């Protein structure tokens, strides 16, 4: 039982990060129909930016995160501008284009930071809290709290502000949105920047939990993507549920199958997706004709 609860806490912590990654995927996907395979690499850049700034300047971790968000937001805008000619057109091409961008970012990270990577000390100094024999790392609590706050803010933005409403409108029907005077290009750029910002947040948070290195983006991206799919692609609640579910799947696989956890995780994922391709909350069209 104790082991179970301990694994659960680890799973929820990672799940919160996957949920952030998945939300980043989803907000871009629903707004502009673009599946951003470079998203994982943006997460990696975010992790590097935050940790480098944090280690170099000794400023609070929160400030480092804000800097990272600004950096990746900019990268997001560049990617969006480049791929704009392909939007709402050829799905496969767009997908490959973003894979290309992912490779560029990864190679760029190797050139800037070197291939080896670095460890990030935990920004929270206090020891784990002991609750009925289960040790809850304080940093886990922080991660969960920040992820929850970010989710709340995003929901508020999408539902309560004019800009957010415009983005929702573009997501539903970009032609109709144009007709009522919404600047679709600007809205898309905004979605991309927000998605990249979420990626940076996820990357900054996961930095102290993992080892920051140039190839971390590949695995994180695929896991966040898988999380988005489990929840239902393009759905925001789906991203959260899928993220947590995938975090749990991941940490229980790690607990029971040790080094084969990745094998088990992806086999189970493939099975789940085959049974229910649209995920929990569902996207109407999986087989895009």
């Amino acid at each position, binding site marked *: 039982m104790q082991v179970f609860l301990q694994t659960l806490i680890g799973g929820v912590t990672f799940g919160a990060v996957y949920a952030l990654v998945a939300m980043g995927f989803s907000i871009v996907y629903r707004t502009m129909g673009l*599946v951003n*395979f470079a998203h994982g690499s943006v997460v990696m850049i975010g992790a590097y930016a935050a940790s480098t700034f944090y280690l170099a300047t000794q400023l609070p971790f929160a400030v480092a995160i804000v800097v990272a968000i600004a950096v990746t937001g900019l990268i997001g805008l560049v990617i969006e501008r*480049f*791929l704009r*000619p*392909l939007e709402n057109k*050829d*799905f*496969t*091409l*767009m*997908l*490959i*284009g973003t*894979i*290309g*961008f*992912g*490779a*560029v*970012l*990864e*190679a*760029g990270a*190797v*050139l800037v930071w070197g*291939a080896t990577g670095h460890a990030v000390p935990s920004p929270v100094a206090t020891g784990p809290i002991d609750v009925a024999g289960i040790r809850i790392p304080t940093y886990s609590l922080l991660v969960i709290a920040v992820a929850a706050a970010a989710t709340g803010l995003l929901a508020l933005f999408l539902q309560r502000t004019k800009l957010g409403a415009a983005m929702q409108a573009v997501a539903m029907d970009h032609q109709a949105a144009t007709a009522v005077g919404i600047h679709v290009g600007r809205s898309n750029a905004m979605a991309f920047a927000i998605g990249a910002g979420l990626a940076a947040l996820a990357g900054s948070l996961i930095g102290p939990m993992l080892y920051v290195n140039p190839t971390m983006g*590949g*695995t994180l991206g*695929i896991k966040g*993507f*898988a999380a988005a*799919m489990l929840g239902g*692609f393009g759905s925001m609640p789906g991203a959260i549920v899928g993220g947590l579910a995938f975090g749990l799947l991941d940490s229980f696989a790690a607990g029971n199958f040790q*080094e*084969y*956890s*990745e*094998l088990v*995780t*992806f*086999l189970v*994922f*493939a099975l789940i*997706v*085959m049974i229910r*391709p649209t995920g929990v909350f569902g996207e109407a069209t*999986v*087989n*895009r*004709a």
Partner: protein
Amino acid sequence: MKRLVLIAAAAVAAWLLPYGLGGYAIHVADVAIIFAILAIGLGLTMGVAGQINLAQVAFFGVGAYTVAILTTEAGLGFWTASVLALLTAVVFGVLTGIPALRMQSHYLGIVTLGLALAFTNWVTNAHIAGRAEGISDIPVPPMFGVDLSSGYLFYYVELIVFAVALAFALLVTRSPLGRRLRAMRDDDLAAGALGAEIPLLRMTAFVLSGLYGGLAGILYAGLIRFVAPESFNIANMFLLLAMVIIGGRSSILGCVVGAVALSLVREALLDASGYAQLGYGLVVVLVVVFAPQGLAGLPGQLQALRRRRGGGSRAQLGPFRPYEAVPRAEERVALEVRELTMRFKGLVALDEVSLTVPAGQIRGIVGPNGSGKTTLFNVVSGFYTPSRGSVALHGREVSGLAPYQLAQRRVARTFQNLRLFEDLSVRENLLLGLDRTRTWWIWRYPSLPWKVLGYERALRARAGELIDRFGLAEVADAEPRSLPYGIQRRIELARAMAMSPSLLLLDEPAAGLNGGEVRGLAEIVRSIRDAGVTVIIIEHNMGLVMSLCDQVTVLSSGRVIADGPPAEVAVHPDVVAAYLGDSMAAPTEESAEAAVEEANR
């Protein structure tokens, strides 16, 4: 003739190449050939069949690792192990392809990528696969005393394998199978309606992928005689993808060129691999945005640019040559729909619809928008499985069959919004309709390739006839998207008739046609009926319906509200109410006829 000379020249050059290369250069050439075979496999699945397969490198790994494990652990000979490795890779291909039956595009991409990661995870941790160190002492493949540990001699083995693999891939792409795969890539719904067995075709694509991956893996094991996890990781998958995209994913030769070019570039930039990676990424992005068809598509793009500057001539339809009338068979029922109900969640699109269409009739189906006409077609042609009720074709129950099964039972249809394969020429669109073989016919590809070529020639002859009959000679080799709307409608009709159907479903065939074209359409449909085909036509052009149809069924809100000869139906009070709203008083017979005439004009 010119092509033969070119092929011979390429073969001779490839054969003589080792004489001009040093020891290391020949090794580079050997590796390039292996990547070329891999790229052909990826080109076939992704470029031709449109299946986003990011596990190609894993199939490559399965082939290489199987050889390594079987030779070192099980003590099998190299070639025995190779045969088993090829089988294993194909099995892996099939297993990886199973998700493709349920999902496509990015979903499939992420699942195959996940499975590829699972594979690398397994080989890095399994004792039998040598964990992170890999397996090193793979024996030299024996070959009648020829020493294949020499990169020079191994080059010839590879060259022969590559030539066969390339020839087979070209045979596949230029024959009925390749055409169906491309049709499936462009529009799997329309391909299904033409009789392509979509599930089987998707699996075929993955079998091909596994086959080429396995083949490359075996050669790799024989050449390097050492396997380790990093040779089959995601970075190499990206490299392979870059080769295929840069070369041109839908052209097999383009894939080969891309693979060879990038292998060489990679070798040249070995000292600056960080920048090289950056470069591949940028080139892929640029290619995707500016030259989506890769190197192979550049000549076509330039030509199109020049043509646009020159200004094209306007394509013209030729006259339709009517079918020979056959004496009408004794009256029997072609289609019987019984109490069909189709529900989408809460919405009832069809509510206990029953209708009987006798053979050799032209039946009109009319009704306001949203009355369930197209839903009825979708059920009859197998796109939807009805919630309740049944459909019988020539007295045989067919409800619940897939579109391709109905197409094989000679049901053809056209679509309201035109579903032509945009990237295939008009001729190829028709060839797809003419080709009535089943997918299992493909066993002939490896065993009797000349029969495949013979069959293809016969198909082309029949396509020529059809093009002639429908007056499409002038546009036969154009892409449908470049043609005016009216011509596209005619092409879709010709494609449906290519299936020599017994039941033809036309969904708003006159939409967007001008008066002359509508008259032409009526003439064609009559001729089709006279040739013994039963025709059901959904149409809003009441003039056409009234003059063409033998009987008209009116749907409103998913129910049949009237059924009978056109003149009777037009004055039926319920019909008038459905069209004009029930606040109107029912018109008299004369005013209805006037309305019909109005519509005719």
